[in-house]
């Protein structure tokens, strides 16, 4: 299956704004994302603002650079991926004159960089709007007239096997394994397939 960069960006944007509190009375508010799917890179740039709420008050534009990563078919039959952040860039500072010193911006940069795990955790999980069933059902019939057949079910495991970013689309190769059909009573004890992960396309550098 494949999905466009436009749709992925819409789905990520729908989760914004996201505000994350950082040490030293700093907060980062993320407001928009761009998604670039090219040359097997699923790059995500998220823009926003970092702001200090007490003296010296300072604000700067922040850009988080990362990639879509960790594709999982979860227990709710959804295909999800996370955004991993590799790099933080700050720019266009504003605030009290003292805050415009490059040293202050450097300190801000270090604090935000040190908070990458918190920032990554605060980012939305991106769910691709498809449903991947974990079983196939064949309805029963009758008994009606001369005929009757018991309903049956075959367990199915779906794994996101490989992911490619190509021509502005994200291509996700799914591996589907269908079990054998058994009557519903027999298959009730079958265990549900576990969630599976896929390697992400090459990370943006």
């Amino acid at each position, binding site marked *: *299956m494949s999905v466009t960069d436009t749709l992925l960006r819409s789905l990520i944007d729908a989760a914004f704004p996201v505000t994350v509190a950082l040490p030293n009375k700093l907060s980062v508010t993320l407001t928009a994302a761009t998604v670039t799917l090219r040359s097997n890179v699923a790059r995500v740039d998220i823009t926003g603002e970092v702001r200090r709420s007490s003296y010296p008050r300072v604000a700067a534009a922040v850009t988080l650079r990362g990639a879509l990563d960790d594709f999982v078919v979860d227990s*709710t039959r959804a295909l999800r991926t996370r955004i991993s952040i590799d790099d933080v860039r700050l720019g266009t500072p504003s605030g009290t004159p003292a805050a415009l010193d490059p040293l202050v911006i450097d300190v801000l940069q270090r604090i935000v960089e040190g908070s990458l795990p918190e920032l990554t955790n605060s980012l939305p999980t991106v769910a691709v*709007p*498809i*449903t991947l069933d974990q*079983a196939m059902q064949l309805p029963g019939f009758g008994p009606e007239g001369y*005929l009757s057949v018991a309903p049956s079910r075959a367990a199915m495991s779906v794994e996101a096997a490989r992911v490619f970013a190509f021509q502005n689309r994200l291509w996700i190769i799914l591996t*589907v394994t269908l079990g054998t*059909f058994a009557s519903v009573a027999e298959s009730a004890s079958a265990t549900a397939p576990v969630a599976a992960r896929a390697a992400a396309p090459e990370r943006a550098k």
Partner: protein
Amino acid sequence: MRRWLLGGIGALLLVGLVALGVLGARYRPKAEREDPATVMREIQSLTKERDSLRAVVYEATATSDLLDGRPSGDIIIGLPTPFVDAVVRDVVTGWFHDVDLRLPPIRLRKTGEIRARLSIFGRRTLGTYDLEVNLRGVRGRLQPGTPVLRFADDDIQLDVPVRLAGGTGIARIRMDWASKGMAGPVCGDLSADRDVTGQVRPQSYRARGRIRLTAVDGRLVADPAFPGLAIRIFVDPAPSAIAALDSILSTKGGLCGIALGKARAGDRIQALVGRGFNVKIPQRFFRPVQLPIAFETSVPIQERRLALQVTPSGLKTTPSTLWMAADVSLAPRAATPSRTDATPAKPTAAIDSLR
């Protein structure tokens, strides 16, 4: 002694210094280890390799028919035809697997007159018979063979060998004999009544039909049709049971025996049930089957669900792939509350059907 001790310590220090030097050289910072010019050459080489691989990919994409004919849309689902073939085979096999065919109680009746040439008396009526067969509990089971599938446009043509793998049944057989004419005073009337077991005769059939692929509510649905499919069940009464019935009738000797022998009860029972019983398989027996992937009309995002407008944009079957595509946009209305359970979401935005 002291000199030896100092020499030993000196040697140890020397070994330690040499080891430190080697380790320092081995694990010195990368920037110091590698000559910048070498690194640049390596970058250029890797860039060249990447570009050549990219060219290979573009050429392969341009020449391969794998992606040809796919519909456009924000989301495209492509099912390889071998996968669809395997799923449909399993489904079709499932339809015919262990299907229990059960005949309702059937009453068959045959009456007739028995005439025979009695030497100097010429051809005479010996009597009439009234044969009634009440079949009950006749059951058979269907077992499928390996279906043959052929993809054509949006249809899959099917040819499924089906075997009626035998079964059993019971018949209550009653035969009344009323003597007439010359046989009357000798034989009188006679009645025999007996349960006869039977076997459903194994038979092979070919079920021919098609599966139409449609997209309904964002899901690919295989809708089967087997027009006019019928299975004919033949029941063979157990020879031992028929022989037992015949033996009751043949206890009479002389003219009476001739008359009852002419009646040939066993043959007539075979003739009655020998034509078989037609079991029509109704079309509604073959229910549409949903293939296991579908577009979703809402997605979880943070602590809520985001409603989507999903508009199917194409369904196409190519020799290699079955494509289904949809355009997706955020629904104009507000998001619905978060679901806390793991059940599938109720659609919050309608999906138009492709057909």
